[in-house]
């Protein structure tokens, strides 16, 4: 059987208190993330309301196919993450490692597709800054759209990278048998974080990619 980590930290009175604290902790952290992305969403919403045509035009230059694929990839990774948590809960080490690896793989695929998309934008001179060019009267507002596009998807990608790093650490620990049915809080907490990152994308995708498309 697996050797579980003793894992009751000294400040807690009992495992229930510890579990409660850890769960509340990750949710409180996610609320800070909501506010963090919220600032970006607010700025975006303001400008989109002011420049609807320019933003629609800019949005049409985003690759909806790649974006759609990425959405599916991320949703699948949430599935594998949930399965990983379930495996941890059941004390199944191999399944846990497999699902964590699957989640990492899907996350890397997502980032890879993002790199391709960013590459296309770079070639099309749609990256804000000195190299930005866009025909038509709306160039300035289109640049504004792309500033938000890169800021929002970039911030999201950063959170994905951090998530993948944490998942990698978890894979190593899972492989070394550190988790069991009695102790799997880190997996659960990471799962909550990963689902959150997925949900942010679920908001980002329609807001950025699907303006004015029917």
């Amino acid at each position, binding site marked *: 059987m697996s050797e579980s980590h003793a894992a009751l930290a000294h400040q807690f009175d009992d495992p229930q208190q510890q579990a409660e604290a850890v769960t509340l902790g990750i949710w409180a952290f996610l609320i800070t993330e909501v506010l963090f992305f919220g600032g970006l969403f607010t700025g975006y919403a303001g400008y989109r309301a*002011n*420049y609807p*045509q*320019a933003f629609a035009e800019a949005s049409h230059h985003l690759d909806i196919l790649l974006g759609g694929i990425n959405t599916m990839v991320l949703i699948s990774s949430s599935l594998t993450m949930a399965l990983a948590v379930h495996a941890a809960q059941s004390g199944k080490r191999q399944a846990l490692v497999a699902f964590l690896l699957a989640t990492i793989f899907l996350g890397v695929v997502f980032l890879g597709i993002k790199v391709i998309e960013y590459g296309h934008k770079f070639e099309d001179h749609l990256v804000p800054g000195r190299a930005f060019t866009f025909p038509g*009267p*709306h160039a*300035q507002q289109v640049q504004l759209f792309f500033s938000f596009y890169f800021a929002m998807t970039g911030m999201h990608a950063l959170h994905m990278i951090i998530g993948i790093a944490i998942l990698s650490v978890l894979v190593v620990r899972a492989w070394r048998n550190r988790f069991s049915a009695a102790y799997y809080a880190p997996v659960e907490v990471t799962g909550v974080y990963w689902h959150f990152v997925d949900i942010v994308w679920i908001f980002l995708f329609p807001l950025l990619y699907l303006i004015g498309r029917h």
Partner: protein
Amino acid sequence: MQPEFALFPEKASTLAARVDALYYFLIAVSGFFATLIFLLVIYFAVKYRRRSATEQPQPIEGDLRLELLWTILPFGLAMIMFGWGANLYFSASRAPSDALNLYVVGKQWMWKIQHPEGRREINELHVPVGQPVKLTMTSEDVIHSFFIPAFRMKMDVVPGRYTTTWFEATKAGEYHLFCAEYCGTKHSQMIGRIVVMEPVQYEQWLKNGNGTASMLGEAPEVAGARLFQEQRCVTCHGADVGGVKLGPSLIGLFGKTVQLQSGESVTADEGYIRESILNPMAKLVAGYQPIMPTYQGQIDEEGLLQLIAYIRSPGKTAEPAGETRAEQ
């Protein structure tokens, strides 16, 4: 201006006395409550000072009636203060319709003021007594703030948009003009004087300058008319081309309600005109094609103000193009 030490600023506008009245009211209320608290604290601290090391007072949980009293009473006073202040603020934001229209452009680190008759000033503003003056202002670079303490008037000056404020001076004299929003190295030197004159002297000053550092240039609407030609605005906003209207007529436009393609309607004020020149697609007028080019980068803030002055000037004809078009 007051070179001597004073505890209160001079009152030199119709608003000043009203603002001061609110100020005195707030001082009275605050003074009353602050004094009350100070006296109570001192009184209780002395009367109930510890007399023996072992004394232990009875616990008192609280008293709902007192809590209600000191919640409701401050709330009521606060609402009075709010209402009074809001009323003042509304007055300060709505200029009377007979106000003189002056334009102010702020930039690091000076104020440029344009009188409609053509006189321009730098860091000085001459105005007549007893005449409402409306300022339409913008910045060429960072955010500044146009502040005249003696008038109790202040309004930020923001790049990319117009802000407006107004005052009516009541007392001849010279008063401070300050920039009140930090704007860089010489923020504290972005100051000037407001010179309030009797109306007769003001008219004289407008014509002659009276030895001040102002300049008499063309009236902004004249400069605006010239720009209107130079920038070829007249091509689309002049006479129809073969019976087709390329651009909306600008006759009597100022202050009218305009129907936009999006279904909304807006009032054609200074901000609308400025935006339409710099970002024509933002508010496309219903029934017209999106063919107007942007003039961003081609016309500076002063030019924009001149065009606005031209468009709003009474008796302007939007058809100076009849003959001149043929020359283009």
